């Protein structure tokens, strides 16, 4: 009996300590604002011009954001638990992602554009990674990291189609890219404060920086390889923080 009482008391102390240790959680909101050369992106209706002067329209624009880390004020990195988000221009709700984050002050964050190799080789997945979203190759297992489709008079493909399915998770042409963004003001996360960051994603960059892509020569990419890797290099430069609301 005495022993049990002591045990109980000891357990109580342990639990109280645990409770105190439990990290206070908050939320960081990131809203992706898809644009083309600064102009807001509207699917199927607007025409845009790439850096080679070729006109084009966009019917599909989606990309994976995953493996988010937060940058503390001392530049150390805090890796967050697994989170996979599919930003899809045709689904407005998907363009704001809510990231559970521990309380703290952060200088910025980084993320992968795409899906890490582990999830490419782990069988059937759910939610954002469900192949039902059309972002998984069935003939050559692996995720399409980012996908853009549309049309251009410069395209030699049937129906003047543009098809850019960018993927590949291994070898020299691994298309997974890490993007690091620094916020103009520090981001304070706690139970009361939910910083909202707006990130501009400029599709213009896909075909311009650093590798210029002319639709006349390249209108279709749907396999991993050098062409896909070049586009991934380009789009890793498409993100900029434009607004921070820290309330």
């Amino acid at each position, binding site marked *: 009996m005495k022993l049990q009482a002591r045990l109980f008391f000891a357990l109580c102390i342990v639990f109280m300590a645990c409770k105190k240790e439990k990290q206070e959680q908050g939320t960081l909101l990131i809203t992706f604002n898809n644009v083309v050369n600064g102009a807001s992106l509207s699917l199927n209706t607007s025409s845009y011009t790439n850096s080679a002067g070729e006109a084009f329209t966009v019917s599909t624009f989606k990309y994976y954001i995953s493996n988010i880390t937060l940058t503390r004020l001392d530049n150390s990195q805090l890796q967050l638990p697994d989170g996979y988000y599919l930003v899809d221009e045709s689904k407005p709700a998907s363009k704001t992602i809510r990231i559970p984050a521990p309380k703290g002050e952060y200088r910025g964050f980084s993320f992968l554009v795409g899906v890490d190799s582990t999830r*490419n*080789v*782990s*069988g*059937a*997945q*759910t939610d954002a990674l*469900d*192949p*039902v979203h059309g972002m*998984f190759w*069935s*003939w*050559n*297992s*692996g995720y399409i990291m980012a996908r853009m489709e549309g049309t251009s008079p410069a395209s030699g493909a049937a129906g003047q189609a543009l098809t850019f399915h960018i993927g590949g998770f291994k070898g020299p042409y691994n298309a997974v890219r890490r993007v690091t963004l620094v916020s103009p003001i520090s981001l304070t996360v706690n139970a009361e404060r939910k910083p909202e960051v707006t990130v501009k994603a400029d599709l213009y960059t896909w075909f311009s920086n650093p590798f210029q892509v002319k639709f006349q020569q390249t209108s279709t990419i749907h*396999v*991993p*390889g050098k062409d896909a890797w070049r586009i991934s290099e380009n789009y890793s430069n498409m993100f900029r923080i434009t607004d921070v609301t820290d309330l």
Partner: protein
Amino acid sequence: MRPEPVPFTLQLPDHFPAPVYDMSQNPLTVQGIALGRRLFYDPRLSRDSTVSCGFCHQQFAAFAHFDHPLSHGIDNRTGFRSVPGLFNLIWQKDFMWDGGVNHLEVQPLTPITDPNEMGEDLGRLINRLNADAKYRSLFSEAFGEGEINSQKLFRALAQFMATMNSFNSKYDSVVRKIPGAQFTLEEANGYRVFQEKCASCHKEPLFTDGSYRNNGLPYNQYLHDAGRMRVTGSTGDYLKFRVPSLRNVLKSPPYMHDGRFYDIFHVFDHYSTGIEQTPTVDPLVSKGIPLSVSEKRELYFFLNTLTDQGFITSKSLSEILIDN
């Protein structure tokens, strides 16, 4: 409250290596396997409800497509490779003739969505399953309450496929030294020929080493199939295909990735005298594998001992008629 699904213990042979497929992530249950079997034989998985998995994967042919050189699909369409037999899949690390699929669970996505096979859109299929009261109830019994999603679909199919195992042929009885099991003289001679001339690629006990090789088949100018190069993009993989298992081989003609040989003796002739030299031809076959008439005959008798009658007639794998 639904009862919990009943765990199912898979009998594994002690003369096989450990399985590649991690069943701890998808524990086999009686309900899960039964659901997978129903899905496997349900033609409603295809766009026009005419083609089930079992349409091409016939049990009596070790789940290959007997007598069909190339895969068939909806709208009378034809694929460009032959239907591989399905067995011992939990020991396989990648799938398809070119190894393009890297996990057992996502393999069914390929035939389900391929326009030449079942031609269905995954989203439409999931909606159809969710709209079906019978499937809603079967999925709940196997995986708990909630929407049916593609992961549950693929895991149910994987559970059924995990039970499609073949390791009880006469060959297995002999190597396991089951009392009374022994090769006839011709089978024993054939086994020696096999070990000397075939076993380095068709490695025991699975009768494949899981590799991709160019076995010197003359190029098929109608199909223009680059083999594994299609997946890797590497010219070093040009004309390389999976080394298939030889288990149940006499039950599953025609042979090769394009079903070009209707008779196992044509296969022997190919290795013996038909090798075509190309830059990627495998060194093990590039000089040909000479086989005398009597060796071919003995090899035939040995390969016959790889037929697993219990597997190709097993009641637990057989087709079920789905009328609701």
